[in-house]
């Protein structure tokens, strides 16, 4: 909720400033916004449905049982893949990661889950590609996945 408040607050200030300076330009801003929204709208809806599907199937309990308390590279890779394909709010993800850690998952596995969760967005990729380009998206997510695995490895060794 706070987020929404901040965004609307910024918008109101920006709009008032913009209107005060030029009505013409403000109108143009609305046009640009509408066009962009129409262009990305369909891929957004697709994204929403996929997010819903994945989260409906992969509940917190399911993720726990998949990552489990097992140690070893397989658990880490599984965690990395789950992190990459899901889009979980951090308020849910961190408590889940904490409880997995306490129930016996390794630091490496947990960091793989958290880093891919935040650095790789499989379900947001269609929207990213629409706005920022296919190559950009592919590179950012691909490199992000590799980086996340390396980070997990380093964290497992250090901590």
């Amino acid at each position: 909720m706070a987020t929404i408040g901040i965004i609307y607050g910024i918008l109101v200030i920006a709009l008032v400033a913009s209107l005060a300076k030029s009505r013409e330009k403000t109108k143009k801003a609305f046009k640009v916004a509408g066009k962009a929204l129409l262009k990305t709208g369909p891929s957004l809806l697709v994204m929403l449905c996929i997010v819903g599907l994945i989260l409906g199937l992969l509940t917190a309990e399911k993720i726990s049982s998949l990552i489990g308390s097992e140690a070893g590279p397989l658990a880490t890779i599984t965690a990395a893949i789950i992190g990459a394909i899901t889009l979980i709010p951090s308020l849910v993800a961190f408590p889940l990661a904490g409880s997995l850690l306490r129930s016996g998952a390794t630091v490496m596995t947990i960091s793989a889950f958290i880093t891919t969760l935040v650095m790789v967005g499989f379900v947001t990729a269609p929207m990213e590609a629409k706005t920022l380009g296919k190559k950009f998206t592919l590179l950012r997510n691909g490199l992000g996945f590799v980086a996340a695995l390396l980070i997990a490895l380093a964290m497992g060794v250090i901590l």
Partner: protein
Amino acid sequence: MKKFIPPILIALVYLGLFIWLPEAALRSSKVTLDYFKEMAFILPPVFLLMGLMEVWLPKDKIQSWLGNDSGLRGSILSVALGTLPTGPVYVAFPIAASLLKKGASVANVVLFLGSWAALKIPQLMVEVKFLGWGFAALRFVLTLLALVLMGTLMKAVLSRFPDKQNQEKPE
């Protein structure tokens, strides 16, 4: 025709779920609806902000603040912009796209998106609470390092093989 394939596939999956796993189907529909409500609230103002940015932010300013020659100050500014508490990552894509169009460097846009998703301040506080200072601090440092490397690499690759849609359109 091609753009109808994903929606049809999704509809089929949902249909299958409703037949074989009605419980999961219900959960999925609920999550989708929740996210839809959230997006319906957040996206219109975000796109409008992007429109305002597009109209008002002077290209040369963005170029000097965040462009290829903005140096360390540009990187710091990108991370600072990204870590502000402002919502889910899909909100950042249109903003990043308009920064890119206005002349921000690929490296800085990668930093901005990366810190938006991975280094958000409210998110870090939750992380500290559940995973501890050591975990959060180490992840922060390593992620920042990774983002800098990724940005540099992507800048090099994309300057040789640019995305078609990000090239300057003659108007």
